[in-house]
């Protein structure tokens, strides 16, 4: 309750919805205290912001496009995703291990993190809101066919669905099938066909 005549002894009513955001203030404050104490370096957060801004799904698309055009690289990528990413020159900045799984005519693969939002960030950037949402995380493991239909992807009964719950230390990148009719395309043109959603497994790669 505000008073027309300010009473210096009255409790202060704090309107935390006014002015700078409470959580924004908190993050700034935490950072400043930690820098002041020498627990983190002054430029580290800025440096990490730059890394985050630089990484986007095009990295994963380039990786897949190389695998589509170089069978030996494809085998290395499927055998050890982490090593192949490093070979390709991508900075595996969060130190997670990568498993690359290929879509085949017989098996459709789908990735989810039911417990939180684990995602192959070094090759895809940050996950979309829907990937982090309760409906996606709840239903991908129990009703993958129904869920895929919502993304416009129909998986026929003769194709097996293999759902990967990214629940611990591995991260998953799906290698979509190369679309028919793309045989004469360059690696860069192929990369443009490989969408983020096809590398999660909710859609497939199509000719535009």
């Amino acid at each position, binding site marked *: 309750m505000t008073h027309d005549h300010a009473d210096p002894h009255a409790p202060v009513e704090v309107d935390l919805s006014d002015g700078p955001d409470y959580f924004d203030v908190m993050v700034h404050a935490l950072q400043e205290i930690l820098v002041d104490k020498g627990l983190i370096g002054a430029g580290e957060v800025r440096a990490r912001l730059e890394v985050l801004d630089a990484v986007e799904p095009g990295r994963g698309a380039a990786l897949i496009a190389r695998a589509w055009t170089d069978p030996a690289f494809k085998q290395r990528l499927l055998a050890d995703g982490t090593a192949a990413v490093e070979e390709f020159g991508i900075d595996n900045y969060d130190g997670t291990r990568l498993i690359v799984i290929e879509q085949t005519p017989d098996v459709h693969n789908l990735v989810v993190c039911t417990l939180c939002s684990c995602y192959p960030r070094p090759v895809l950037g940050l996950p979309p809101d829907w990937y982090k949402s309760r409906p996606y995380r709840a239903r991908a493991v129990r*009703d993958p066919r129904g869920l895929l239909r919502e993304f416009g992807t129909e998986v026929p009964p003769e194709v097996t669905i293999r759902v990967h719950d990214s*629940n*611990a230390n591995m991260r998953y990148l799906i290698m979509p099938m190369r679309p028919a009719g793309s045989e004469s395309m360059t690696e860069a043109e192929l990369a443009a066909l490989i969408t983020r959603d096809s590398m999660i497994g909710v859609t497939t790669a199509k000719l535009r």
Partner: protein
Amino acid sequence: MISRYAIGDRVRISARYAPGHVRTPFYVRGATGHIERVLDKFLDPEREAYGVNAGTETQLYRVRLNQSTLWPDYSGEPADVLELEIFEHWLEPA
């Protein structure tokens, strides 16, 4: 370095329910499947969650489960599977 389980071994995911931070989802507790892949050793996340950053290296595996046995009302196909990562202390021979 030999791990306790090998690819193809039939395993059951333990049905334990104590409070704490656990990376074995509720929906697979007590389920039976088989080892799809033997991964590396990693720190136990249940201990990491409380600040233990060393000394708890534990073997991690990928386990494949059949969807039709996991869900009573599974509406997909009989061959559909689910795969996830399970630490050795959550596995029992089946």
